[in-house]
């Protein structure tokens, strides 16, 4: 019984997947029906995750660890899925007969990621990661369209497969050196491996698999194409939930490198600097909104690495805070995107023209979401970024922080271009946008969260601080 309670969120989402699978077997498609089932089940899922937030224990011969750290991320994943479900009411990017499958694979992907954030054994990690990835391999080319979806799907599959290879190769090094697949055992053996490069090489290669999810340089190439090629709702999910899961596993895994200290950190410093600079610079010239957000996600991966490479309690705390913040603010942008592009098309930045006249509420939400991504107060993005910078500076990374701060300025330029379109350009003959009641409520809630948790971050930070202790000191 205890085990079932520990495993509750995963079981719940498995059953939910099953229910959706049964729905997909119907002869006549009833997309509206599927949508309602999906939405309500994913809403209940949040409740399940909240109830099991303070569970603690180990499962499956200690290969699976349930602690506050994993439960926070499970809650974030559940939230990501629910928010994605909310904007699926106009899922025109996917053919109607595939809607049930779309929901089903989103759910299995979520199960995979939930297992990923709890896994503390190499094979379990790999298994969970592939469960999540395979679902996405199928989801991306599902989009109705002109073939760009297939290109995106293939790109994601190939780059995903290659990074999985790197990861397996790295894991084999680690296993060979430490003679164990348990992270805790490996951690204990790490100091003895300092003399041989195998351990460090193994960790770096293994991290490649997770960096792929987070779109860190040099495995970021898939991001722009997948963002543009995938259905808007799916990309919203990839850009929020999938990133949060990647952050969680990177935090758990990167701890292994702590004994290497400086040399390991230098690798991450390099990746962080290149990621954020490259992402921000290339984002400037983008015309497609989703492509722009893809490059901005590469830049944000750089900011997140900046917190990871501190290997310190404040650093990890701020990364958790930022991961949650990123989920919220990025989703806000995607929600506006999917409402404005109600027929499921890709949106050029210029198509936001006069959004202020077409829907003042969405324009406000878009502005807040973008400002939050750019790190402008009062928003969670600002607070999160400042906390990350603070913890990086505490470890003496002056140059890294300076480069990060300058990058903030660069990024503001392209975010402002969207705000410029929404608030200043004439709408011309672009249609009015009338969000439904549910979307309006969600928008208000997101706005409140962005500002509220930005100004009053203490509770989230305290929770994250408690969670970090489970990762850093065991």
């Amino acid at each position: 019984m205890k085990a079932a309670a520990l495993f509750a969120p995963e079981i719940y989402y498995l059953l939910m997947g099953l229910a959706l699978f049964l729905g997909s077997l119907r002869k006549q498609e009833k997309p509206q029906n599927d949508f309602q089932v999906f939405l309500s089940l994913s809403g209940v899922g949040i409740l399940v995750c909240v109830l099991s937030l303070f569970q603690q224990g180990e499962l499956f011969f200690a290969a699976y660890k349930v602690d506050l750290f994993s439960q926070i991320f499970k809650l974030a994943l559940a939230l990501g899925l629910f928010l994605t479900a909310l904007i699926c009411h106009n899922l025109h990017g996917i053919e109607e007969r595939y809607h049930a499958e779309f929901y089903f694979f989103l759910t299995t992907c979520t199960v995979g990621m939930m297992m990923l954030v709890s896994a503390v054994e190499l094979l379990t990690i790999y298994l969970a990661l592939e469960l999540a990835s395979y679902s996405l391999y199928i989801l991306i080319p599902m989009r109705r369209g002109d073939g760009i979806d297939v290109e995106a799907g293939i790109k994601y599959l190939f780059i995903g497969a290659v990074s999985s290879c790197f990861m397996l190769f790295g894991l084999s090094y680690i296993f060979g050196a430490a003679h164990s697949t348990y992270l805790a055992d490996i951690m204990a053996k790490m100091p003895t491996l300092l003399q041989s490069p195998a351990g460090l090489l193994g960790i770096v290669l293994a991290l490649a698999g997770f960096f792929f999810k987070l779109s860190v340089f040099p495995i970021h190439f898939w991001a722009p194409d997948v963002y543009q090629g995938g259905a808007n709702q799916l990309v919203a999910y990839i850009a929020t939930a999938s990133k949060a899961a990647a952050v969680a596993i990177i935090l758990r895994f990167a701890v292994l490198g702590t004994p290497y200290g400086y040399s390991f950190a230098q690798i991450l410093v390099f990746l962080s600097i290149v990621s954020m600079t490259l992402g921000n610079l290339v984002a400037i010239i983008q015309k497609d909104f989703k492509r722009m957000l893809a490059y901005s996600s590469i830049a944000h991966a750089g900011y997140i690495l900046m917190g990871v490479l501190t290997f310190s309690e404040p650093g990890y705390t701020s990364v958790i805070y930022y991961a949650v913040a990123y989920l919220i603010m990025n989703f806000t942008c995607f929600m506006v995107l999917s409402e404005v592009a109600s027929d499921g098309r890709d949106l050029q930045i210029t198509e936001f023209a006069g959004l202020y006249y077409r829907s003042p509420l969405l324009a406000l939400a878009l502005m807040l979401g973008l400002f939050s991504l750019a790190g402008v107060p009062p928003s969670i993005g600002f607070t999160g970024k400042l906390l990350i910078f603070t913890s990086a500076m505490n470890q003496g990374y002056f140059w890294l922080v300076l480069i990060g701060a300058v990058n903030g300025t660069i990024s503001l330029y392209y975010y402002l271009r969207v705000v410029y379109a929404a608030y200043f350009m004439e709408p011309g003959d672009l249609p009015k946008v009338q969000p439904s009641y549910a979307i309006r409520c969600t928008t208000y809630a997101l706005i409140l969260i962005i500002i509220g948790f930005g100004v009053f971050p203490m509770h989230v930070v305290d929770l994250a601080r408690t969670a970090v202790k489970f990762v850093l000191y065991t």
Partner: protein
Amino acid sequence: MVEHLTNFPYLTCMLVSPVIGILIILFLKEEQHFLIRTVALVSAAVSLGFAIYTFAAYDKALGGLQFVEKYEWVKGFGISYFVGVDGLNAPMLLLTGIVIFTGVLTMWELENRVKEYFAFMLFLVTGVFGVFMSMDMFFFFLFYEIAVVPMYILILIWGSTRKEYAAMKLTLYLMAGSGLIIPGLLLLYSTSGLFTFDLIKLHGVQFTPWVQKLVFVLLLFGFGVLAAMWPFHTWSPVGHVAAPTAVSMLHAGVLMKLGSYGILRIPMYLCPEGFQFWAQLMGLLAICGIVYGVFVGLAQTDLKYVIGYSSVSHMGIVALGLATGTTDGLNGSVFQMFAHGIMTALFFSAVGYIYDRTHTRDIHELGGFCKIMPVASAFFITAALCGAGVPGFASFWAELLVFIAAVKVFGIGGLIALASIVVGALFALRVVQNSFYNEPNPKFVHFEDVSPFLGLPRMILIATLLLFGIFPSLMLDVIKTAVEPFVSGL
């Protein structure tokens, strides 16, 4: 610095009043113009009331930091909500209160997207109040950014003359400044070993000379951008010209002071050795700014450009005062921040009124405007005289103090700056002569003069300038309480 806790949260009320105003405005309808303006005016008036109270009730004999409120905010990172008033920020809070109150009055006739306009403006002013009262570097920076970013939208929507270019340029310049400020502040935070953002606690730390020099130069340029320090001033005249009247007032009047106040409050306060090292450079840049502003201003024909460049010059005087590092210099500098704030607000307010009617700001086109709108012109002329440093106005005393100190400390450099003030007088008189006392332009003859109600904000500003011009000790006594201990710490 001694901290005196307060029983009533005066400062929080001053800060929250505009926020409440925003919330009420958000729930009003776009068409309810009058109600929106009234709400904005009332919330500005409440803040002004608290600002006047804290200025008047500041106990000069007691000194130190008064009206202090302090709560722990984020424990793990050493962030606290910590606000207080001392001799340096009491005048600044008063200035902000006056400028926002008169700013709302000045924009009384606005018709385009009224709701958003006042919401953004109150948002901006919340940030300004917050910066001036914060004694915690985290909140200082948070409010600093809040004050900077709404400018983009304010200029973009309600601005004029190349507004898109100006808005983007201004925002990027200021954000680049922030990019230097963050590492500077965080370096202080992490090298102190205390892991606190509390300014007063950090003051007790002896930073290594290397850190002091590095932080000082980062923050000097970071804040210097906003203070329009030469050669980082180029956004400022362009921005002033493009911004709508009340935003120019707030911007030139108050926002630029955030920069110079920031230099005074953080790097000079925490890094005295860094200050000693860089003071010469700071003085040199300030003198360049003073001279440059005056001469470039001479060639302008657009009234707002004229004021924009005179601001560069006057902000140079503020920086020069700071660079002297003497009691006289700092007294004069803080006083100049206040006087220049009120004076520029008056300048822009007067020009705004004329521009709204004639849709031109060209000096020659206006011609003999004095014969058409004597009262509206009088407001501008008063500001111009004040800008030229005529005795009887507040800026006379401020400039006098700064130049006494500058000549003592910088010798020949101070004299050069002083000499340029003579050119500055020529500059002001040329504008006044050409735009107000030439032949009147027949196109504008039918315009009516400013009504007493619309003239009210300008009258308040003139009254303030005269009050502190005739009784400078009202201001200097307050400033002195903070400057004397400050200079002894340098």
